[in-house]
């Protein structure tokens, strides 16, 4: 790409490009192995267990050995599978997972074997959109795996995941808009440098929260792991996959976790920039140190992923979709409008901070009054519902009506205990109180 601000990219010698590609590949595979171990250990601790601690120091090599075992397992291909598509689906999934990392910035310009180069494979004016595009190709892997297995549960899992990822990609894309407005760019390296004084997670907190929610949905992780809901769909889209092909889906899921965490770090937590107390140190943002800050921030997100998995139950599918379409997307549209309006008022019409605050206060007051009025209406509706409930509770109770759960013996009569006779009054009190 030509253009003055991207001068540092695209001029690396070929061996350096190759080196960076190899480094990113190795780092992602190692991070996957580490994350699997880390997840198992953390979840174990949260469940009062110990977790894998036998293979290697602290059990660190456990996931490596599991990987070997998985690759050496017997491969079973169902008879009803559509062979070509069945083969290519895990490849699409894993490839797309690796590709997204090409534009993630790890650090500032450093010197590698005497060549000054940024710690980032490449960058161009729309690199954040590139991540979105690659993510949308990655969905194909999951959908096609579900379809090509020729089996019902994988098909349902594949359909669920396509619906889920498309829905949450909208909210995700909209959470980027405010960042683009503030950074004035869609290039990852420029977004990072635009966060030099203050991170976007602070000034664009709603965007950050929307992104963090939708990134969990986008990676099919608990509590949004409906495509692989064991209780309903066996293994979801990968039910019919085994051996190395299953391992590729596994790899893709964990790399996607790292990718969305890295993107969250880049867009909202200042990328490789040092966090506050460390940023006081002169050379915190030079040399190879930023790589460490970057890794620490990504690990925080991965820990949150694990924490969510250990604590939250899975959502019901309709609740999940309702949340995405009726809460996240409208919320992000409103937030983008607020941000855009505030920026126009500040930059073009020359409002001062004080005037902006007054306008904000008026808007909040209107919202408060509106929500109070809405509450009054809802309360009125609830009263009607409570009356119906009271009527139900006050009916004469026949415990053996309809023969449930056990058919009555001939001539059997219900025996009313004293507690039961008193209960309508008690329940009425519970409703009123």
């Amino acid at each position, binding site marked *: *790409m030509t253009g003055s601000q991207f001068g540092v990219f695209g001029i690396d010698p070929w061996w350096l490009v190759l080196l960076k590609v190899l480094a990113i590949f190795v780092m992602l595979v190692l991070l996957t192995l580490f994350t699997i171990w880390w997840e198992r250990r953390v979840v174990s601790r949260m469940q009062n267990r110990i977790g894998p601690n036998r293979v290697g120091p602290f059990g660190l090599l456990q996931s490596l050995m599991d990987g070997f075992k998985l690759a050496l397992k017997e491969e079973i291909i169902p008879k009803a599978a*559509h062979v070509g598509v069945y083969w290519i689906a895990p490849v699409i999934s894993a490839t797309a997972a690796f590709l997204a990392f090409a534009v993630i910035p790890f650090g500032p310009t450093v010197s590698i074997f005497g060549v000054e180069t940024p710690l980032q494979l490449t960058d161009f004016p729309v690199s954040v959109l590139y991540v979105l*595009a690659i993510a949308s*190709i990655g969905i194909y892997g999951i959908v096609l795996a579900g379809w090509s297995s020729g089996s019902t549960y994988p098909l349902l899992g594949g359909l669920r995941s396509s619906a889920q990822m*498309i829905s949450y990609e909208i909210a995700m894309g909209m959470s980027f808009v405010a960042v683009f407005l503030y950074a004035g760019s869609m290039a990852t390296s420029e977004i990072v440098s635009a966060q030099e004084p203050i991170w976007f997670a602070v000034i664009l907190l709603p965007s950050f929260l929307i992104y963090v929610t939708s990134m969990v949905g986008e990676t099919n992780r608990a509590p949004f792991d409906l495509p692989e809901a064991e209780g309903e769909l066996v293994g979801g889209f990968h039910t019919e996959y085994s051996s190395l092909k299953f391992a590729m889906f596994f790899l893709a899921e964990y790399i996607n976790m790292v990718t969305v965490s890295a993107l969250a770090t880049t867009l909202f937590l200042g990328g490789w920039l040092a966090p506050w107390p460390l940023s006081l140190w002169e050379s915190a943002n030079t040399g190879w140190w930023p790589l460490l800050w970057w890794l620490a921030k990504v690990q925080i997100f991965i820990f949150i992923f694990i924490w969510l998995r250990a604590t939250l139950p899975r959502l019901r599918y309709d609740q999940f979709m309702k949340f995405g379409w009726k809460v996240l997307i409208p919320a992000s549209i409103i937030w983008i409008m607020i941000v855009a309006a505030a920026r126009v008022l500040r930059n073009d019409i020359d409002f001062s901070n004080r005037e902006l605050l007054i306008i904000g206060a008026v808007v909040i007051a209107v919202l408060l009054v509106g929500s109070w009025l809405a509450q009054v209406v809802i309360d009125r*509706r609830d009263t009607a519902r409570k009356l119906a409930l009271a009527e139900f509770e006050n009916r004469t109770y026949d415990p053996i009506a*309809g023969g449930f759960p056990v058919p009555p013996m001939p001539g059997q009569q219900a025996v009313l205990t004293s507690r039961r006779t008193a209960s309508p009054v008690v329940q009425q009190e519970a409703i009123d109180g």
Partner: protein
Amino acid sequence: MTEVNLGEEIVFWISGGLAVLGALGMILSKKAVHSALWVALTMINLAILYIANSAPFLGMVQVIVYTGAVMMLFLFVLMVVGVDSSDSLIETLKGQRLVSIVLAIGLAILLIAGVGAGLTDVVPVGLEEANGVDGGNVEGIARLLFTDYLIAFEVTSALLITAALGAMVLAHRERWLPRASQAELSRSRFLGAGHPGNLPSSGTYARHNAVDTPALLPDGSPSELSIPGPLVARGDVRPIDHHDVDQIESLGGGTK
């Protein structure tokens, strides 16, 4: 015309070839899902060609919108409808063929005229100058969309909103009463509407064990509730083998 360097030429022949392959595959595939996949391949390769021509924004939007959303929805529908359902060849719209031929010729004329004019009448100024006006490719597209082509942009968005509204109207179901909550549904079940708990499961016998076999009630009669309604409607219910019933009685030693 402008110079084409070696890298660009290689990209063009690979991506262009794959795009044409995808287009051919789309027409020649027998399975609808395979056709959709070939189209996705064509779209991705078109995006690569856009990026190679220094239009990265267009390339990315092509992948996100067409590959990621439009083709995905196509796939979604194909999968839900079922892969083996064949298309009906009966035309439901009168004169559809004639209108589509006229429109296709019109579109072809429009495209050929547009591309022809672009190749002959327009003098290319070069990328640097075109992008330099607004300081970048993305900024240039944004300015054109929201100034010179604002009306076209708004009309297109109105068209899309109309389509979305149409889909909503088609899928809409009028709800006269508020939706019953889980608690209310449970209460109404216990009050007599429907069955309070899980329905009894189908019969399990030594000879057959399937959803089309009714379970037996204590008096030996088949339980209607233990078989799914659609099977009853289709007449697919397996009759009770009275040999089974006799065996049960002899095992239990009971009398009717």
